[in-house]
């Protein structure tokens, strides 16, 4: 029969399609004492010197312990693997390690584990995102030249003395350098990392309180408490299951349904319900993140002398209180300096340092802008990527606030950029013609990290190309100060220059938020808004 042969062909083709779906399946083991937590797919492979965002950072924080670790509450850098880090001249440091630290594969943590890891992280051939963190070690430009091939395999500033000791020589004096060592890029690496890199990336091995049980890239990672861990912060739970969610709304739904214990990013849409849904199982606390609007100082229309009045005027035209309340439901706090409250007073945060210039005053704003010669071309355009973070909403609100204050119709407009990648390109190629958003998450809780990379001449993330001799001098002096309080005071003096010049308008400090289930307790966020997993108890 004619029809039957036709049908055979069709059935044949369909069965090929069916066969493809036969794979997959299999159950999951639900162990006791396991914390189920939401996760996002890390952008880069998980390795200490290549991870620069929170999602990969979560894993590293469980897998690794470096020389120092920041106290989740106070942000103080406390010795972990380091016994002591000594210096007499703020430039040459001798690092001594504690006894008894091992990697979970049995290897000992030695001076070599650190030196090898740092040399690897700095080397241009390793293509690690975080290599600039090693830039102040002597010999960095030999392993990481601006162009061309590396001239050396290792940095001359790193010397292994014995199994427990190594010395570090920096390019220039930097008194708070030991305090930067809590950053994950400075983690030690076992031999197995260098021997079989591929295998290590499939299943990372570190010296922290957890080990990787299984890792399905893009989907989930199961971490289990490492029984033989000797450090002071042994895990208080049996392990952590990280599950990748594409949408934080879905993760939140799963939390409500009891499928998840911890969501470390409460979606903006749910902020109105979160109190009713979770009662006191909701955390909203300052993190080391500040959002600013940066002016392109390389564009003379914005950067020429006299324009500081216009820039300050715009700052005064923004009603930060209203916007943080209405749009962010108080998950942002109006900024009054260029650092973050998560630094604490001791670390250099000073409420109100910006003074008048950050206070909402439409009358004054209008006057200042007129005195400064008005907006360039009578217009201002705000630029940001709008694919994440409610950026579109707050930019509209900021523009409304400015337009209302100036009373000249819609002089402020929004320039939405579709993707973060595109926005970053415009930003780092210095192609902006008007103010643009700049978010900054500090790498370590130091005031230096909020100022030097962003506003010093030639700073690695000085997107506005702000240049000021006094500012540079104060930062340099602060870095040479051996006394922490004196260093902070110098940095704050430098910050006052920002208040005068207003190269970047501080908008608000961003909080970290989290919600958790009734099954867990002891949940807290550190200053990087990452949950402190080892402290979570499962009831």
């Amino acid at each position, binding site marked *: 029969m*004619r*029809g039957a042969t*036709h*049908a055979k*062909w*069709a059935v044949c*083709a369909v069965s090929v399609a*069916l066969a*493809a*779906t036969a794979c*997959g*399946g*299999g159950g*999951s083991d639900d162990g006791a004492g396991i914390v189920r937590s939401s996760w996002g797919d*890390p*952008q*880069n*492979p998980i390795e200490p010197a290549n991870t*620069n965002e929170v999602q990969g950072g979560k894993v590293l924080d469980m897998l690794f312990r470096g020389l120092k670790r920041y106290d989740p509450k106070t942000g103080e850098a406390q010795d972990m693997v380091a016994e002591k880090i000594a210096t007499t001249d703020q430039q040459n440091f001798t690092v001594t390690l504690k006894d008894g630290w091992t990697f979970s594969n049995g290897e000992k943590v030695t001076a070599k584990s650190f030196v090898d890891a740092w040399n690897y992280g700095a080397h*241009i*051939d390793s*293509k*690690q*995102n975080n*290599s*600039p963190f090693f830039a102040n070690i002597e010999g960095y430009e030999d392993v*990481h030249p*601006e*162009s061309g091939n590396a001239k050396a395999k290792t940095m001359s500033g790193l010397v292994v003395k014995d199994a427990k000791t190594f010395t570090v020589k920096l390019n220039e004096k930097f008194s708070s350098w030991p305090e930067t060592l809590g950053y994950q890029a400075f983690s030690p690496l076992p031999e197995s990392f260098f021997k079989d890199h591929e295998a290590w*990336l499939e299943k990372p091995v570190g010296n922290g309180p957890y080990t990787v049980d299984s890792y*399905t*890239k*893009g*989907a989930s990672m199961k971490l289990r408490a490492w029984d033989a861990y000797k450090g002071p912060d042994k895990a208080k739970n049996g392990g952590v299951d990280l599950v*990748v969610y*594409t*949408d934080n*709304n*879905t*993760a939140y*739904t*799963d939390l*409500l*349904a009891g*499928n998840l214990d911890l969501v470390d990013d409460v979606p903006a849409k749910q902020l109105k319900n979160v109190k009713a849904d979770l009662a006191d199982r909701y955390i909203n606390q300052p993190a080391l993140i500040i959002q600013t609007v940066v002016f392109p100082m390389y564009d003379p229309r914005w950067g020429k002398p006299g324009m500081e009045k216009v820039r300050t005027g715009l700052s005064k035209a923004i009603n930060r209180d209203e916007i943080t309340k209405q749009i962010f439901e108080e998950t942002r706090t109006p900024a009054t300096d260029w650092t973050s409250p998560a630094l604490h007073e001791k670390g250099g945060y000073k409420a109100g340092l910006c003074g008048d210039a950050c206070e909402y005053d439409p009358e004054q704003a209008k006057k200042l802008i007129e005195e400064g010669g008005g907006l360039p071309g009578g217009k201002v355009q705000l630029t940001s990527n709008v694919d994440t973070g409610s950026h579109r909403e707050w930019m509209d609100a900021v523009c409304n606030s400015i337009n209302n204050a100036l009373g000249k119709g819609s002089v402020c407009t929004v320039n939405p950029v*579709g*993707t*973060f*990648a*595109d926005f*970053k*390109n415009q930003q*780092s190629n210095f192609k902006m013609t008007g103010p643009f958003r700049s*978010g900054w*998450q500090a790498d370590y809780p130091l005031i230096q990290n909020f100022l030097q*990379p962003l506003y010093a001449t030639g700073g*690695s*993330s*000085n*997107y506005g190309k702000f240049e000021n001799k006094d500012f540079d001098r104060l930062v340099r002096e602060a870095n040479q100060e051996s006394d922490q309080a004196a260093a902070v005071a110098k940095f704050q003096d430098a910050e006052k220059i920002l208040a005068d010049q207003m190269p970047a308008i501080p908008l608000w400090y961003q909080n970290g938020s989290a919600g958790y289930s009734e099954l867990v307790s002891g949940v807290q966020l550190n200053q990087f808004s990452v949950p402190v997993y080892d402290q979570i108890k499962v009831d």
Partner: protein
Amino acid sequence: MGRYVIRRLIQMAPVFIGSTFLIFMMVFALGDPVAALFGDKAPDPATAARIREELYLDQPLWKQYLHYMGQIFQGDFGTAFNGQPVTELMAAAYPVTLRLTMVAIFIELVVGITLGVLSGLKRGHFIDSSVLVLTLVVISIPTFVSGYVLQYLFGVKWDVIRPTVSVDAPLNELILPGIVLALVSLAYVTRLTRTSIAENVRADYLRTAVAKGLPRRRIITRHLLRNSLIPVVTFIGTDIGSLMGGAIVTETIFNIHGVGYQIYQGILRNNAPTVVGFVTILVIVFLIANLLVDLLYAVLDPRIRYA
């Protein structure tokens, strides 16, 4: 028949090359992805240059495309930024999406055709008008609304099912997402079947069949339905393609790590290998689905022949 199939398969080659080039060009136009890898920080120029060199991004567009196609013919679809080969991503994502699509298509076929036949046979009756209203309502509700509402009701409020799909995505967890995905198409299938049935009920051959005294059941399934299904089959065929690529919303709501998720992620990160690789496979799926539809015509209507 066999020759026809082979001819169609050969015709796919130019379509394949043309569409991959267009997609490649569009992703290329999105701009340089390397800067975004560095987060809020400014990219380190030396490292960024190395990454560009490795990904062939420092070459002109045509060279990049040739290089990419050369790789594809060796079975290498490139590497995503997180270090995973794209083929690995595909092996993980396609089975999941395919399973979801089949659940959706199954629901569309069973429910859609049944409702369509019922309302087609009982034109103007109560059942016809209620199906009409129902399909109207379904068509006018966007997928994300029905998705979130059903998820909340079944997953959180009544606690009947898991609100999200686990990593392995077993079939039973895909039923609700499948329903959500099927809803809109289901309404179209119902409408198409109804119209087609209503038309063919008055056809001469059907009157002959009735006059011959055939049992009603045989008349409906063998004579009426089979001839009425041609437009429905065409619709389902193209729907397979769009369901497999366009399930982004449903996949996001139910946290299914399928094709939609990977493409979305790829676009956000300007990751050309992921986007082009996945869309290329989608193009092939579309082409094959169309071929199957054409072959099915012949099964349904013996007057159509291929040689």
